[in-house]
């Protein structure tokens, strides 16, 4: 695959399915776009079909079209200010081709109706890396061009100097947000962004294959390694492309997410701890990396050193994978009608490692709403972010667009639970177990720290360096980055 930096966020299942059909030649681009635009209704179909392990999405042909505002259950909060009517703000949300855009437009229409504030939706970059670079350029240029930004969960430390403190804005509901997210978004006592939707790494497995080989869902990495090898050995006879375990090993942010899961679950620390200690150079992290490097060329092909989420997804839905690590979006995507594994997909928490402090660990992802200090219309911008992150809006975003909420009460909403069963089933992963990348202690240096981490880790995976050498290099490099020069 070409090296594209992909955002670590949810890809809508229906779009993913359409994209896959498109790539594999089953449908044309036009058809893909059509199907993608229908995705708004897809999530509800999923609800009707229920069941975590057997969920399957309805055929695209049979899905009623829901375009524009029709079908969106967005509820406008009652406490929005109405004295700012006529103010016009600009917000960067999804990218130009994003399937959530019709939902965004519907939400904006409701917001304008309630407050009189006009919102212009500005498309952002698709790749999170490009997006961050552009945001930084905006801030460096002290541009008042944009008022509201959608920011990744790992950016608060980077964009904090340009953030309006939103503590006041959500003071009434702050206790309802997932505490880990609030903590993640709080820099030096101020809330730099409001949590909007969330993500976490999950382990996918093939229920039919586990049954066939008489195995259970692995709870430790070693068990996963053995089970994957067993299934792969058995399947290779009939399928030469079979892969025991698929994950993301390319040198990009996604590898930081994978690597963090390996080391945290092995008691190997958090790269940089909350107090700023650089803890990466430890035996348990080395062991975790060596274990991962051992997968390459055994249960995972060499090509994994260039894999991103899409490669995992493509191989999984083609029926070539026994176990896979991916974000929640793959659940709906792999259960879509066109998927060869629909109905045979199971999801669980990622396995534990061994040694002292071993635990289950899933890397936390997700997006937040941010208001720029360079904005000249901060009050109106704040109202918009409050609206977007409110319970009534998150509920709709979960039901109709299958984005995992950040407000605890929304997890308990019966409509959300029936529309997206995996959200409530894996609730503990989202609400408790997810591990934040060290973006808070590294602050504005996070992007560089992560780059050092994934570049060195990628070198371990492709065999050009040893795990021990890599963690030593990481330690020196991160120390250099944090020196402030």
């Amino acid at each position, binding site marked *: 695959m*070409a090296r594209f930096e992909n955002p670590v966020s949810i*890809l809508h299942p229906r779009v993913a399915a359409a994209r896959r059909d498109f*790539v594999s030649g089953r449908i044309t681009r036009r058809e893909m776009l059509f199907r993608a635009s229908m995705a708004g209704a897809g999530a509800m179909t999923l609800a009707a079909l229920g069941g975590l392990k057997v969920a399957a999405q309805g055929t695209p042909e049979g899905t009623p079209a829901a375009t524009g505002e029709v079908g969106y259950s967005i509820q406008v909060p009652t406490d929005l200010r109405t004295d700012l009517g006529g103010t016009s703000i600009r917000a960067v949300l999804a990218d*130009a081709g994003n399937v959530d855009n019709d939902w965004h437009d519907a939400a904006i229409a409701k917001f304008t109706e309630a407050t009189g504030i006009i919102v212009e939706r*500005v498309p952002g970059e*698709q790749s999170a890396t490009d997006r961050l670079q*552009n945001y930084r350029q905006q801030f*460096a240029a002290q541009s008042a061009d944009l008022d509201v930004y959608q920011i990744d969960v790992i950016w608060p430390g980077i964009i904090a100097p340009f953030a309006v403190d939103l503590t006041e804005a959500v003071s009434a509901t702050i206790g309802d947000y997932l505490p880990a997210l609030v903590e993640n978004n709080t820099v030096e006592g101020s809330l730099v962004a409001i949590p909007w939707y969330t993500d976490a790494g999950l382990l996918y497995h093939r229920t039919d294959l586990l049954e066939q080989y008489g195995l259970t869902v692995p709870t430790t990495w070693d068990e996963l390694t053995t089970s994957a090898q067993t299934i792969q050995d058995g399947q290779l006879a009939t399928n030469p492309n079979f892969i025991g375990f698929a994950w993301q090993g390319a040198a990009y942010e996604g590898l930081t997410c994978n690597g963090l899961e390996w080391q945290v679950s092995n008691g190997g620390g958090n790269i940089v701890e909350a107090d700023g200690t650089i803890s990466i150079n430890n035996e348990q992290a080395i062991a975790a990396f060596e274990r991962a490097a051992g997968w390459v060329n055994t249960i995972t092909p060499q090509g994994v050193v260039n894999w991103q989420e899409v490669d995992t997804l493509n191989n999984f839905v083609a029926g070539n994978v026994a176990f896979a690590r991916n974000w929640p979006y793959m659940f709906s995507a792999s259960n879509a009608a066109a998927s060869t594994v629909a109905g045979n997909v199971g999801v669980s928490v990622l396995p534990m490692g061994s040694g002292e402090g071993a635990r289950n660990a899933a890397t936390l992802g997700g997006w937040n709403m941010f208001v720029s200090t360079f904005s000249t219309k901060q009050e109106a911008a704040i109202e918009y972010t409050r609206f977007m992150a409110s319970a009534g809006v998150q509920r709709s975003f979960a039901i109709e667009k299958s984005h995992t909420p950040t407000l605890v009460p929304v997890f308990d909403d019966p409509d959300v639970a029936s529309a997206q069963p995996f959200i409530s089933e894996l609730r503990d992963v989202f609400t408790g177990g997810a591990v934040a990348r060290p973006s808070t202690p590294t602050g504005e240096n996070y992007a560089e720290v992560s780059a050092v981490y994934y570049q060195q880790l990628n070198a371990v995976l492709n065999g050009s360096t040893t795990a021990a050498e890599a963690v030593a290099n990481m330690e020196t490099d991160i120390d250099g980055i944090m020196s402030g020069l």
Partner: protein
Amino acid sequence: MTTLSAAAEEARRDAVQSYKPKRKWTIGRILNKTLFWALIVFLFTYTLFPYVWAFLSSIRPNSANGQIPVQYWPENLTWEHYQYVFSERSGFLPALRNSAIVSFSVVIISIAFGASAAYALGRLRFRGRSFVLYTILSMTTFPAIAILGTLFQVVRQANIYDTVFALIFSYLIFTLPFTVWTLTNFFRAMPGELEESALVDGASPFRAFWQILLPLALPGLVTTGLLAFINAWNEFLFALTFTNSDRARTTPVVISSFSGNTQFDVPWGAIMAASVTVTLPLILLVLVFQRLIIGGLTAGAVKG
């Protein structure tokens, strides 16, 4: 100024003819000939294949672009990639517009500034002349990255971040030195009598420049203009750094991060369609102005 002069061309022909006397067809000679033509064919393929391949990929559906084994001749033709590239969603059209605005502006400004400076440097005697010439010339060796950060500050202070002005302004650093140098040589090479007769007739030096020398320098102006255009059209680093929206982003930046409709798509068909489109004007320029471009490129290299 050295476009391919007639004298050099003739000398070359002489040379070629003189060392190729008629010989008999021997096995060795046939082998030699075969090898020679094989090399020629290889060279054509080597230089043109990537572009031809891009074109073929741009008219094939994406499903065929990811096929193994590779489909060499497109079985199904499609214009969908071009339709997408020229649709509003791709963001390519504004980029094309920005590229055109930037490139034409750069050409006009560098020729206006460059020709005027070149006349002064080439035909007027004044104190500080070589200082000016060398200052401008030294800009050629300048790595763009050396001023990336600080030029960003200048752009911000001038309040032209994310506008075409930022690019027009910064591109002059590439195009101006070259224009000044080439045109200075051009003016210098003109016979002094031309201007002298005008001056004797009482025309001011500026009039002599404007009415007599400038029209004569037209081939030089076209050559430098073409090269400035190509440089501005192709520039990447400054465009990547000084712009970040449809308002000013140029085609190289858009193509470098061109992605499809969904997050995980690698839309080779659309990338190739955009690549073919953005290169087309350049290929046309090359075809039409081949001689002038080669002349401009090699100017100086064969001086004295």
